[in-house]
Every structure is written in C-alpha cells, then in structure tokens.
C-alpha cells in the first residue's frame, strides 16, 4: 500500500487544490528555503468575503522527518474542507465496527468556519528530512544541516532538531530532558543558536508577519493533546517567575530545580477546556483515548515550536497572542517503525483530522463572529466592541460555576454555528442578544429588560430543540436562571451566573 508522498508530491497536491478552488485558497511559500534549497510551501484557506478580523490558525506538519502520517493528514484535511465548502457536504470521520459513533461536522458550520478564519497549512516544514526518510534512513528526525567537525565514529555530524531550535529557553537541558547541545546527538541537537535553521526561522518569521491565534504542531506517536509548558511544571500564582528571567544556551539544567513556569490561569483553563473537547471529538471517530496535559507530561523539552508561539506575547507585550498546541498522534503499535509510519495509517489519519477539525471549529467564536459582523473589514472597530464581553468571559473563567457555563457554550458551539448559518431568524435573534450584551458591558447602569429576557429565552429554546439530551438538561437550568434576571444589572447577572453551574 503506497501511502507516503515525497515532499515535492505534497507540494504538488496543495498546488492542485489551490488551482481547483482559486477563490477559496492559494499557495504560499515560507520566507526561506530548506538547508538543501527546497522551497517550503503551504496552503492558505480563507473562503467568503474579505473580513478584517478573522482569527488566524496555523497547522504545521513534518517538523520531525520520520513522523510521516501528519503531512498526509494535513493535505487530506485541506481537500476535505474544500470539497465540503464546494458542495455543502458534511464531514464525517468514522470507522465502522469500532463501536464509536463517528465524528461529524455539519456543512453549514464548516462554511461559517471557513468564512471566519484564515487557515494556514504547512504540511511538510522539513522537506529535506522528509525525503531523507524515504530514501536513506527511515528513523531520521532532524533537518539535514551539515555541522563542522567529526563524531567519535569518524562521521560528520548532520542535522538539527527543529523542535528544539526555537527561542524559548533555547539550549537549556532540563533534567531528564530530550535536548542536546552535542552536534553528534542523533536526534535532539538544539543547533548552534536559536533559530539557526531556516526551517525553524520560517516559523518565527511567519508568526511575526501574521496574527495567528491558534497554532498546532502535529507530531507522532503518542495520543496526547499538549499545551505549554515543556521546560518546567506550570504555576499560576507568580507571574514574575517566568522564562524571560532564565539564562539560555547554557547546555545545562535550570540552576534552580524547584523552578516552575508561570501560566496565566485563564489561559490554562482555556487550554484544558479546548484540549478536552479535542480529545472528546477524536474519541468519536473510533474510540481512541487521547490525554490532555502540559507538554512536560510527555518529557521535558526546550526550544519547541508551540511553546515558542505561546511565549511570544509574554516576551514582547506588543506581540499577538498565539495559543500553541502539540497534537501527538498515535498510538504505539508495538513496533517503533510501524508507529512512526504505519503501513496502513488510514484510521490514525482520521483521528488526526478530527483533532485538527475540532481545533479549527473551536477557533471560531460565534459570539465574536456575530458581534463584529456589522463592522465588516473594520477590524479595529470590531475589536473595540468586544472588549466588554471578553472581560465578562474572562471573569467567568475564574469561577467554578462560570467555567461550567463556558464549557456548556463550547459544547453548544457547533450547533450554534450550524444554526446561524442556515436560519436567518435565529441569526437575527442571536445578533440582537450580542448587541444587547455589548451595550450592557459598555454601560454599567443599564439593566436587563423583560424584552431582553424574552429574546434570550427564545434563543435558549431554539438551541434546546436541536441539542442532545444531556445539553437540553443544562439548557433547562440556563432557562431557569435567565428568566429570573429581569431588572438585573450586567454585573449582578454575571455574579449569579458565576455562582450557579448549569450542570
């Protein structure tokens, strides 16, 4: 079964997709060619009218050369999305007989998603290494940079691990960590300097040039959804204890073994909540059990792409905030070669595509979409409108009851996207509610009127009519809470919601 394409064939595939759907997408080329001179290309999907406030998503594959399934999955996903958009077809990833129901995303929700996001896909970010796996060494992981000197066996050292070469605690070796400063290290050499390699410098450049909200680097083989950090355990109490204070390039462990890295508590909750939804969606395909946790749970690392992406807004407060993910696809099959490049990866590729679909769908916020719609391409005006309700959202994240409401919203979100895509009356009601929320957020003296309550209850009832039973139960609670709020100020309503879980 011939299943793995060369780097050139992968580029040809995305060029052909772009040629077939020229108003939905186009190819692009990263700033620098690979060490051996190969152009590194990607596909930019952005359907619908120009909007100035699209959320950006970057999906990266093939950083580690031997992990061959992931470039295939990204190209496959691109084709699935374009076919769905072209013909208004649902996307279902399912394995009959697995006992799992299959994961389905409706055509209307996909259309809204594609018309709301800038999706950038780079399936094969390490083309030299990729082709070296196909032609010389099927366990190769790094790029193909020749280094100076010779190793103990007389050979010339070659290659840098592109997922250790980024400027986040670069060149520090955490205890038990998989990082090396030795050019002769077969797999995890971090390179002579941060971003010394064109393939990883491309990621830095891309993130500087494009406002990317969600970044996922797809690896193999462990069934995990990973979020920062990789170099130390996280803590949420001391913002001053953060990576900007650490010395880099030491080729030693961190001097303080008790060091913990700060992560914003709201961000941590978002990572956990979104990660859990990804794992849940993947499980629908064929029952695969993905776990969710910080990157250090796999093994300690420094210099990785997703951690770098997330670190940028902390190191430079003017930088766009990017949520960085590693999707580790698997499982281990009992044989390492078969785990990195199985002879039949088709079912694993369904899992991978479901994980990426889940992340893409969660990168759209229906409320933001509708709240900014009246402003079209006027991105800054639209963003200003959202400041107040984003503050409410962040306040809810910090309360247990509030988190439960946000989890309910996340579970309802696919249905919400579907309905606003196909039902104009429903869309108008949601838009009216969002505009009311924006007005309430701007004026602390305003209160919820009976009309506001009636509009809100109508939306809740609409959603309940098309939701599964376990969500209907929560929506009944939502209804009961909401109908008591006439005359409440926004702050009073928020306080009630934060104290009362819908579950």
């Amino acid at each position: 079964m011939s299943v793995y394409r060369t780097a050139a064939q992968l580029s040809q595939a995305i060029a052909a997709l772009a040629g077939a759907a020229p108003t939905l997408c186009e190819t692009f080329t990263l700033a620098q060619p690979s060490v051996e001179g190969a152009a590194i290309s990607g596909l930019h999907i952005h359907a619908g009218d120009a909007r100035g406030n699209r959320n950006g998503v970057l999906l990266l594959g093939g950083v580690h050369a031997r992990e061959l399934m992931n470039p295939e999955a990204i190209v496959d996903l691109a084709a699935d999305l374009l076919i769905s958009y072209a013909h208004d077809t649902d996307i279902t990833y399912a394995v009959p007989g697995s006992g799992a129901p299959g994961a389905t995303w409706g055509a209307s929700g996909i259309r809204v998603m594609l018309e709301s996001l800038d999706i950038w896909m780079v399936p094969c970010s390490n083309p030299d290494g990729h082709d070296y796996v196909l032609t010389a060494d099927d366990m190769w992981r790094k790029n193909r940079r020749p280094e100076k000197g010779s190793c103990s066996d007389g050979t010339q050292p070659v290659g840098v691990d592109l997922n250790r070469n980024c400027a986040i605690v670069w060149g520090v070796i955490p205890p038990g960590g998989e990082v090396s400063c030795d050019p002769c290290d077969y797999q995890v050499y971090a390179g002579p300097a941060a971003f010394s390699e064109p393939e990883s410098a491309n990621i830095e450049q891309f993130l500087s040039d494009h406002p990317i909200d969600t970044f996922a680097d797809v690896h193999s083989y462990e069934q995990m959804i990973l979020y920062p950090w990789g170099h130390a355990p996280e803590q949420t109490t001391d913002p001053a204890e953060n990576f900007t204070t650490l010395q880099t390039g030491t080729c030693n462990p961190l001097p303080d073994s008790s060091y913990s890295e700060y992560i914003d508590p709201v961000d941590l909750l978002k990572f956990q909540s979104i990660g859990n939804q990804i794992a849940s969606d993947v499980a629908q395909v064929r029952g695969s059990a993905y776990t969710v946790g910080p990157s250090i749970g796999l093994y300690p690392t420094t210099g990785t792409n997703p951690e770098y992406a997330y670190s940028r807004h902390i190191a430079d407060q003017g930088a766009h905030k990017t949520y960085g993910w590693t999707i580790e696809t698997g499982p281990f099959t009992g044989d390492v070669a078969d785990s990195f490049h199985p002879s039949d990866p088709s079912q694993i590729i369904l899992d991978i595509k479901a994980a990426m679909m889940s992340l893409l769908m969660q990168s759209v916020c229906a409320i933001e979409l509708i709240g900014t719609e009246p402003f079209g391409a006027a991105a800054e005006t639209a963003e200003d409108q959202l400041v107040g309700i984003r503050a409410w959202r962040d306040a809810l994240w910090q309360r247990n009851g509030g988190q439960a409401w946000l989890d309910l919203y996340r579970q309802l979100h696919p249905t919400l996207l579907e309905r606003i895509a196909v039902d104009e009356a429903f869309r108008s009601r949601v838009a009216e509610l969002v505009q009311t929320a924006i007005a309430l957020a701007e004026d602390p003296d305003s209160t919820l009127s009976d009309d506001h309550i009636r509009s809100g209850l109508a939306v809740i009832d609409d959603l309940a009519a098309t939701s599964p039973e376990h969500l209907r139960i929560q929506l009944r609670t939502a209804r009961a809470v909401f109908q008591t709020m006439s005359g409440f100020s926004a702050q009073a309503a928020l306080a009630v919601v934060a104290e009362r879980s819908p579950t």
Partner: protein
Amino acid sequence: MSTAAGLSGTAAGARLEATIRPRISPDPGALRGLDVLPPLDGALHVLMSPGQVVDVVTAGYEVRVFAAHPIGPLDPSLVMDDDAAQAWIDERVAQIRGGRGA
C-alpha cells in the same frame, strides 16, 4: 556486560529498540545521545546502537532489547509513486470542481 557484548557482535547496521530501567547507582550521563521515544510501560523507551547498550549497562542500568531495526530507507512499497500521487490529485480536484469557490 555479556549481553551488551553479544549484541555488539550481531547488530551492526541496526538500531536496537529497548527499554531502560535503573539498576545499581545509575549514571544519568550515560543516557545522553539516545533516541528517546515516548515512554513504554513506565520505562525509558529508546532506539540505541550496540555500543550504547554497552555504555548504558556499564553505567548501572538494565537494558531490555526487544527489536532490531535495520538502518535504511522507508520500505519502498510505502512510498507513493507519481501515478498514485496524481490519482489522488485527480480524484480530489474532480470532487471540488463545479462547486462553490471552484
């Protein structure tokens, strides 16, 4: 040591897949340079050369070798040829054509 010496004599041109557990006063420095894979059954899971087996065992670890992987290219039967790659393209392009955005 005898185990390592035996492997050294038979596994040239191959990487050994193994799990490693601490035994007596292990020296973690000996683990540098191994190709570390996701953990297996709670043990360090690696690909290593026969020479590295000797070093790691000597440094106080127990090494359980359970597979040998010849160093070489991907099985050519798994590599897509140009006809198959073009067929994939033709099928998808045909599915996109005639629809919205095409």
